[in-house]
């Protein structure tokens, strides 16, 4: 029996020839990542357990991105604790205000994830690095603390769903439309405990930023990870970022998949998820005109350079509709700077958008734009759960940057074609 791409990476990190779905294994880790919410909890667990040093100070990353710049006294205490732990452990990869970006945009950008590696992160969207052909998945704070000590973690070898991509997306259809469509097809637990492995000729038609967005939301289908094959685009992306040896794995021809889902990218339309589950999908055509109060463009899902460029293309020489508030959050300092250099910041500000410093802020109702009861936002973030971005009686519609920007201009849910 052949192995999936994920199974091959796991086998290599266990040090065995092969692994089978359902088997429990302990695997070596290449990176353990955490943020300002999860690191302090792990630090307490680590220290109370009597552990002294992390297994490898080059393989532990702490990224203070959720409540930062600190929104209140309690969150400042969390960041302080994480900062002190990073200093005491002399961590190589510690990112604080000024250099920090949203973790899942920052880790690939800084070359901290490479093809064939295993990365765990105390954040559910750690599955993002599957876009690079790595096995990466989210864990909790106890898992992380134990891994800091041992450099290992336990995994149940996942079975897999194969997503066959064919065709080529039309101009305004991006990775967000692909993943929302997929979640709409298989449901929020459609890939529970499983890998989602993307394959087919359509992969080549997706940019790296598209792939990051898609892998990022694998968790929203319950997936353990969402992984792409490594191709020229992947190698081009990691060039100049990753300078250590890495391994490229391919799924075996006879790998077993529990299910195959086919998506023809040429047929995909702009897609949104209505409240209160990511699986509650509709095409934009079906819900055009739906009332919104605000727009968020950013997050670990859609705060990357291409997302900013797409939004800018729509906002150029246009204005945000009266009564709509737009909050744009570039995901990293490099992206922020690039936006300035390309004149994108000027476009955003002249259109009437607020632009914030890189932070997870609004996505989890933390800060930087929280909703009260009765408000509705269209957001490029990843979860539209009850209360996720504010009051329990506020509502979230998930969308791509193109749809979010077009809706901002229209003043209601709309696609780019509707306003251009």
């Amino acid at each position, binding site marked *: 029996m052949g192995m999936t791409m994920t199974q091959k990476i796991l086998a290599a990190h266990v040090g065995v020839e092969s692994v089978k779905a359902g088997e*429990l294994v302990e695997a070596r880790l290449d990176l353990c990542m955490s943020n300002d*919410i*999860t690191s*302090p*909890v792990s630090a307490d*667990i680590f220290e109370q*357990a*009597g552990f002294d040093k992390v297994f490898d100070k080059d393989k532990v990353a702490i990224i203070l991105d959720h*409540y930062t710049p600190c*929104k*209140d006294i*309690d*969150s400042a205490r*969390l960041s302080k604790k994480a900062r002190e732990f990073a200093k005491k452990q002399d961590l190589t990869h510690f990112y604080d205000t000024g250099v920090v970006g949203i973790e899942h945009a920052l880790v690939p950008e800084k070359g901290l994830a490479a093809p064939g590696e295993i990365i765990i*992160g*105390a*954040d*559910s969207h*750690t599955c993002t690095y599957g876009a690079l052909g790595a096995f990466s998945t*989210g*864990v*909790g*704070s*106890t*898992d992380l*603390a*134990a891994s800091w*000590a*041992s450099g290992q973690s*336990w995994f149940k070898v996942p079975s897999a769903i194969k997503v066959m991509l064919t065709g080529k997306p039309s101009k305004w259809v991006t990775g967000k439309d692909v993943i929302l469509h997929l979640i709409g097809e298989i449901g*929020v*637990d459609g890939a*529970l*405990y499983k890998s989602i492995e993307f394959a087919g000729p359509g992969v080549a038609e997706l940019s790296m930023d598209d792939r990051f967005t898609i892998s990022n939301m694998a*968790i929203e289908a*319950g997936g*353990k990870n969402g992984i792409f094959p490594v191709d020229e685009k992947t190698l081009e992306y990691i060039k100049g970022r990753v300078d250590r040896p890495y391994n490229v794995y391919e799924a075996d021809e006879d790998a077993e998949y529990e299910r195959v889902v086919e998506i023809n990218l040429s047929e995909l339309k702009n897609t949104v998820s209505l409240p209160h*589950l990511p699986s509650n999908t509709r095409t934009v055509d079906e819900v055009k005109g739906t009332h919104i109060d605000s727009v968020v463009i950013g997050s670990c899902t859609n705060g990357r350079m291409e997302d900013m460029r797409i939004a800018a293309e729509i906002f150029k020489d246009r204005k945000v509709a009266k009564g709509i508030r737009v909050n744009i959050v570039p995901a990293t300092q490099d992206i922020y700077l690039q936006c300035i250099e390309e004149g994108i910041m000027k476009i955003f500000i002249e259109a009437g958008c607020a632009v914030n410093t890189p932070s997870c802020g609004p996505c*989890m*109702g*933390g800060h930087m734009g*929280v909703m009260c009861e009765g408000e509705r936002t269209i957001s490029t973030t990843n*979860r539209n*759960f*009850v*209360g*996720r971005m504010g009051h*329990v009686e506020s509502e979230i519609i998930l969308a791509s940057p193109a749809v979010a920007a077009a809706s901002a201009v229209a003043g209601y849910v709309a696609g780019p074609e509707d306003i251009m």
Partner: protein
Amino acid sequence: MVKGKVYKFGDDVNTDVIIPARYLNDPSLENMARHCMEDIDPEFPKVDHTGDIMVGGWNFGCGSSREHAPVSIKACGVSCVIAASFARIFYRNAINIGFPILECPEAAEAIANGDTVSVDFETGVIKDETTGESFQAAAFPPFIQAIIEAGGLINYRKKA
């Protein structure tokens, strides 16, 4: 063996409603217990839940990786969660902190809110004392059983 009153919830109970992100800036057990489930049932955290049993549907604990979610349920005094299925990170987190969870679709379906239920962790037998019906939960693999017996992942690692 535990016995308690059931608080029942539906499918896809996510970690954002179990413990909203706006409270994660203070991860103390008191704060976690004070706000547990309040976005899905504002009355829930106002009651003493010592010994109570939580029942959920499919995909319980989906969403964020925050360990604060099982921690907050445990901090309320709830003795265990029975669900049709669990999201994988919640499942790991519960085991890692030594908090008992049982996967049993039949029990999750049949047990009603307010019923009295007993759970035998040794055998995995769940009994609805109100209706007299019994259910068999899936057994944990030996490795996971060993983590639970050690009192969580950290103790397990320290022994290894």
